[in-house]
């Protein structure tokens, strides 16, 4: 379903296909693409080249919070003599090793040789929105970049942390999907919306979130009648779409999108009511409009 939006935006057991294996050598690194196979029973058949670990098998009994517990355990516990220890961290890792790593040893051994993720995920650093948790990405599935407010700066801003990862994942790993995923109550977006227009003072946070200033401008222009909180929510989604447009300013990204090798998706996680909204940038219909800040999205879904 295509949805025309110009100048405004509101925005474990599966079976996966077997694919043939192929190799490519890029920049001296040998990358191997292997197929993914998942069984109905929730465990991967490790006799094949399986890279994605099933959620049910890998999550049962591991780390799920029991509602009766009120406090989250500290990873750093103080021992009797007052010094910090890493007992809890060690225990958690050993539990991961026993219940996931060793149970899927062949998968992990294949992953150790090479990774072939299908996603690049650009997410916020917020502790509540880890993509591995809320979208269930297992080892090998997603190359993930996390920064304040899941922003993507345009190409002309020059090199930075995010576009280094973008370059590596697109050119070396040849991911097929980029997901920019935002969330509710984002402190970074709130900081962006709180900035004064003529503010001269600089700080790390201001210097960074100003990447989203075009989203802020559009938000203020279209939602001036709404409360500040509502404007922030609007900007959280608007900034995702502007980040998708900024992705197209990278020549190697646009080239692959134009050829149909790479899809750009937006996602929004509301952790208050646990809903997820997702959409895909319609490149063909957006092409030519992005310089004016226009975009068209398609395949919009709301999961609740």
């Amino acid at each position, binding site marked *: *379903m295509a949805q025309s939006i110009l100048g405004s935006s509101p925005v*474990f057991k*599966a079976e996966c296909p077997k*694919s043939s294996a192929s190799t490519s050598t890029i920049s001296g*690194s040998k990358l191997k693409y292997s*197929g993914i196979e998942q069984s109905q029973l929730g465990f991967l058949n490790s006799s094949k080249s399986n890279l994605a670990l099933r*959620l049910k098998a890998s999550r049962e009994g591991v*780390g*799920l*919070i029991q*509602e009766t517990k009120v406090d989250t355990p500290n*990873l*750093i516990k103080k021992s009797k003599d007052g010094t910090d220890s890493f007992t809890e*961290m060690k225990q*958690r*890792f050993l*539990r*991961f*090793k026993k219940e*996931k790593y060793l149970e899927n040893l062949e998968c*992990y051994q294949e992953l*150790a040789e090479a*990774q072939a993720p*299908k996603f690049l995920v650009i997410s916020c*650093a*917020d*502790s*509540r*929105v*880890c993509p591995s*948790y*809320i*979208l*269930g990405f297992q*080892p090998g*599935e997603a190359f*993930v*970049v*996390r920064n304040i407010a899941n922003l993507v700066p345009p190409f002309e801003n020059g*090199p*930075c*942390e995010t576009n*280094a*990862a973008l*370059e*590596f*994942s697109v050119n070396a790993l040849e991911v*097929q999907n980029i997901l920019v995923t935002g969330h*509710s109550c984002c402190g*970074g977006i709130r900081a962006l919306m709180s900035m004064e227009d003529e503010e001269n003072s*600089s*700080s*790390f946070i201001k210097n*960074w979130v100003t990447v989203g200033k075009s989203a802020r401008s559009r938000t203020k222009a279209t939602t001036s009648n709404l409360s500040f909180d509502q404007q922030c929510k609007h900007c959280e989604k608007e900034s995702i779409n502007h980040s998708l447009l900024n992705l197209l300013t990278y020549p190697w990204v646009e080239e692959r999108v134009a050829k149909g090798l790479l899809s750009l*998706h937006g996602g929004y996680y509301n*952790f208050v009511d*646990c809903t997820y909204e997702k959409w895909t940038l319609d490149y063909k219909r957006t092409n030519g409009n992005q310089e004016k800040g226009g975009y068209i999205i398609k*395949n919009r*879904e709301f*999961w609740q």
Partner: protein
Amino acid sequence: MSEYSNKEADTDDEHMCLNTRNEKEQEDTSHNSLENITSLQVTEPPPPPFDPIKRMKEGFNYFKVNEFNKNPSYYRKLAEKPEPKFLIFACSDSRVCPATILNLRPGEAFMTLNIANMVPAFNQLRYCEVGAVIRYVVLTYKVEAIVVIGHTRCGGIERLMSIPSGQTKPRDFVDDWVTIGQPAKAKVLAKNPKATGEELRTLVEKESVMNSLGNLLSYPYVKAGVTSKKLKLIGGYYDFVRGNFDILGSKS
């Protein structure tokens, strides 16, 4: 009906057409050898193409049903006031997410994931991205520890090692980023002149973690936290080849 749904239906129709066509070929060419007919009968249909949206939806549904809905008071509290104890710097590599290997639940750790889990030294213009995370998290949430986690077979470190000595102009964005680890590379090469290959890379992977811990101290609020013993800096290393996790060192 969305375009996505249409694509699913088309795939099923293609499979049916393929099977029908195969059957017709067997009838028309009755002189085909048994070997050819056998090979036609055992031909497997091509697997359906990877569906990224379906994969995401399954993951989200699993989280909602098995985690969120079963712990409503925890997530309600989290939505209002998170109290993370950790800021973690880890690599963007798809194999090393700290949430998975350390079983970190939502709310426990702010995470910055970048190429080769690097923390640059304080620079408000050049590295505002990382600086924004450090400043925001340390001053807003009063985390108790900053953890930098390196890992085996890191593509970013491999790229760092591939940069010729004396090269002043980065070849691309990745080169520009990984040069943050140049001091670690230089230190390891000076101390281990005979090391090569994976052994050398492992040494640099670990030294780069310590280099990042040192760079953290260039942020005044981090140094203040460490000096007052309210903040601990920890270096870790995940070896996914052998399935080990080591603490490399800490600064407190």
